[in-house]
């Protein structure tokens, strides 16, 4: 699950990306090959391996070095950006066996850059990738999605969990055991058998964690220094050199053939990802042409405003799947358990001035008020507002009335910690001020970013002990397009064991039932309708107050051409830009 559990994760966690305006003289010129693309970031690429949890920024790196069965095209067209297409798979198959079986034919000529020379990627490599997912050393953060779907994966993982987390025993287990639900009838065919029909299975296969693994990697611990030193790429680029916390340099992968890859043009000869650059400095380098693109920086709103004011055509906006909302703690007994009362939560929903949040984030170019759990571009999003107010400015009167009805005519005192970074302090104060009008006295407190999610918010005992009443949070779906499940399941469903990102064990049987139907149906339209009902069912209980869907501004240096957003990475696609210097 891509929560925003670290600062970096939060930085540029985007999903479905849409160019609102895509400008530049790119289309007039003839694409040219060559050159070195310089990418500037504050943090370095944190993972080279496909399995361990990585920041969402690393998705752009993975795009350059890894290929998996399914991926997305880099495109200026909104619909095309989120359309799953075959990458290593020749095409996207329709499921058979009542939606339970998916059979993929592998693209011939797609090679590993193996130490003994280029080698064809086989069905067995695909299965090996899935086997590594639940290795006992560092597992995949997306495992639960697959474990619930693929026949036999849960059993396979249960057995793997007992293995000692060392190279030899792990290698032996992977070689000796098979996942019953993944069949490899021949070297170029792989079949997945699912427990239940799932219309988002195809999207799941676009995650880096579902990438194939060459047999050599079994000789190393996941993402260990040995793994990194013996890196085997199957994408257009591979690692040439790596200086920790400083620079990662990618060069062409000799084993990659352009004719086998419909998604990546790979114009540039090399890509340098430079770490340790501050946002301001990075923007200046981009403007002067010393840098080409940003890695994990989002453009500071003030810089963005200046660029817009100057009419800089290298600026573009993307709609992201990223949302901001306020979680309400319904498990603590603070204020006599006031927040357990749905009327109080609805009062909070009515009181929230979403227009102020939009303004604070830079106006309608940067954000849009959100009234449900699904953002635009994610299946299930629709215009509705159960707690309407004029111009989304909040209805303090209605909120006060509800609060009085609930037995708190004199208002309520609530605690709201916030992440002390970027625009979060300003947002927290905006929320505080907007709720004040309705009689809520919000006591805000800054929390160091590194502590916020790991120590404070995802620690369930803090919720139970009433350390917080409200908390501003954010979420990005794990894949673009049909990602409703990756928003609903981790956050708004509860199966008896506490989920990390369902901060106060919210559960709605009706929503769960609808969501199960929505995931299972093969009728796309019905699925959309059902997800919309899920959204409304959840919002009726008001477990969170949705604030805004965030658009992200993208910027690039003057030499960059063909800057097309790659939706999962929320950035221009490194493998499709070319340079004109």
């Amino acid at each position, binding site marked *: 699950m891509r929560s925003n559990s670290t600062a970096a994760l939060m930085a540029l966690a985007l999903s479905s990306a849409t160019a609102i305006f895509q400008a530049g003289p790119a289309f007039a010129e003839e694409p040219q090959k060559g050159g070195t693309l310089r990418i500037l970031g504050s943090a370095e690429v944190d993972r080279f391996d496909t399995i361990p949890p990585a920041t969402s920024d690393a998705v752009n790196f993975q795009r350059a070095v890894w290929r998996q069965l399914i991926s997305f095209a880099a495109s200026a067209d909104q619909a095309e950006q989120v359309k799953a297409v075959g990458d290593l798979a020749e095409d996207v198959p329709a499921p058979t066996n009542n939606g339970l079986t998916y059979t993929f034919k592998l693209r011939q000529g797609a090679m590993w850059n193996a130490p003994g020379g280029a080698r064809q990627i086989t069905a067995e490599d695909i299965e090996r990738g899935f086997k590594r997912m639940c290795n006992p050393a560092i597992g995949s953060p997306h495992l639960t999605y697959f474990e619930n779907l693929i026949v036999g994966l849960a059993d396979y993982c249960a057995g793997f969990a007992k293995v000692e987390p060392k190279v030899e025993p792990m290698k032996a287990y992977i070689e000796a055991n098979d996942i019953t639900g993944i069949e490899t009838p021949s070297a170029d065919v792989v079949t997945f058998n699912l427990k239940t029909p799932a219309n988002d299975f195809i999207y799941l296969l676009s995650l880096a964690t579902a990438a194939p693994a060459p047999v050599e990697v079994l000789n190393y611990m996941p993402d260990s220094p040995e793994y990194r030193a013996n890196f085997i790429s199957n994408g257009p680029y591979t690692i040439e050199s790596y200086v920790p916390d400083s620079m990662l340099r990618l060069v062409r992968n000799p084993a990659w053939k352009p004719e086998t890859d419909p998604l990546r043009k790979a114009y540039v000869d090399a890509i340098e990802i430079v770490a340790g650059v501050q*946002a*301001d400095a990075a*923007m200046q380098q981009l403007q002067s042409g010393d840098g080409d693109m940003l890695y994990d920086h989002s453009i*500071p*709103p*003030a*810089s963005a*405003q*200046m660029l817009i004011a100057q009419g800089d055509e290298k600026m573009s906006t993307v709609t992201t799947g990223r949302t901001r909302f306020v979680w309400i703690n319904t498990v603590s007994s603070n204020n006599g358990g006031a927040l357990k009362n749905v009327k109080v939560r609805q009062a909070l929903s009515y009181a929230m001035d979403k227009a*102020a949040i939009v*303004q*604070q*984030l*830079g*106006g309608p*170019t940067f954000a849009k008020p959100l009234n449900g759990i699904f953002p635009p571009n994610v299946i299930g999003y629709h215009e509705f507002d159960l707690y309407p107010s004029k111009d989304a400015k909040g209805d303090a009167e209605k909120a006060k009335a509800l609060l009085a009805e609930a037995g708190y005519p004199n208002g309520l005192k609530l605690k709201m910690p916030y992440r*002390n970074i*970027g*625009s979060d*302090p*300003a947002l*927290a*104060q*905006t929320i*505080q*001020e907007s709720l004040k009008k309705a009689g809520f006295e919000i006591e*805000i*407190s*800054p929390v*160091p970013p590194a*502590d916020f999610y790991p120590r404070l918010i995802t620690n369930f005992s803090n919720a139970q002990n009433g350390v917080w009443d409200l908390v501003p949070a954010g979420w990005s779906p794990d894949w673009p397009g049909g990602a409703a499940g990756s928003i609903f399941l981790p956050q708004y469903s509860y199966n008896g064991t506490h989920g990390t990102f369902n901060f106060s064990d919210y559960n709605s049987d009706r929503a769960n039932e609808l969501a199960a139907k929505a995931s299972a149906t093969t009728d796309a339209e019905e699925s959309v309708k059902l997800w919309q009902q899920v959204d409304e069912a959840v919002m009726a209980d008001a477990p969170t107050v949705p604030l805004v869907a965030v658009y992200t501004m993208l910027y690039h240096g003057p030499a960059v051409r063909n800057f097309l957003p790659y939706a999962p990475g929320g950035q221009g696609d490194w493998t499709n830009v070319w340079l004109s210097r």
Partner: protein
Amino acid sequence: MTAPATDTAPAVVQRGSFELTLRRLLRDKAGLLALAFILLLVAFALGAGVVEAWTGHSAFEQYRDTGLTPTGMPVGPGAEFLFGTDGLGRDVMVRLAYGARTSLTIGLLASVLASFIGVSIGLVAGYFGGWADIVLGRTMDLVMSIPVLLCALALVSVFGPSVILSVAVIVFFSWTTIGRVIRGQVISLRQRDFVQASRSLGAGPFSIMIIDILPNLSVPIIVYTTMMIPNGIVFEATLSFLGLGIVPPAPSWGGMLAEAASNSIYLVAWWLIMIPGAILLIATLSFNILGDALRDALDPSGRPARKRRKASKP
């Protein structure tokens, strides 16, 4: 030194010394200017409510229609907002006034507390010597060897930011300087005849320390306490700048600077850096100059004062 004053007729000589001090102080133009600015600042801080009433803007209210552009950018200095607005559409002038309250309160409180602790410990260590001196002296060394900011950050992240913690941190790290000075002075003073005389008359250590020694320390105490005020103000600003001092939305100078620096907003709103930055600079400079002037005025044996006295004699 006022030591000779206690020996002879105290009432007359002490008045003369005060007069002399005052005359020396009045001759120091920089010191007077600094004093004037400090008085102005105090008036500004005390009159924060008046500023609020006069502008009609509260320090917390976000003027989203008049104080921010539709794209959330602050409004520059103008008729409605004399010093402009901040990133949340709040009046910078009103916040500056309330921030002055915070800064001055913390600066004063912290320096008075620190000098109280420093003087007490310095007195005890210097007077008793021996084990007391070793233990207290090494404690001072220990405190001085702690990396201030690192420790402050750690403390604040454990206990959470608050005014009381800010003051405590500032006090904890600033009492040692004055403590050392006092200890040194006391070591030399306790050998003096008037202390011996007091002791032979049967005075206890407590009475000697308070009645005989302490008045002789008034100069370093006044000077060092004044000099500690700007340190306190800057330290508070530093903590708030790092988001570890005053909890927003309560205004403080350091917090205002931090808000200006975050999100590069200073690129479009120079007044968010220049105004609080300038006032912070002038305030700390004033306290430092005043401290200097006080030292010169109170201590006729100090070099600059003697030079001036010589110059004014002919």
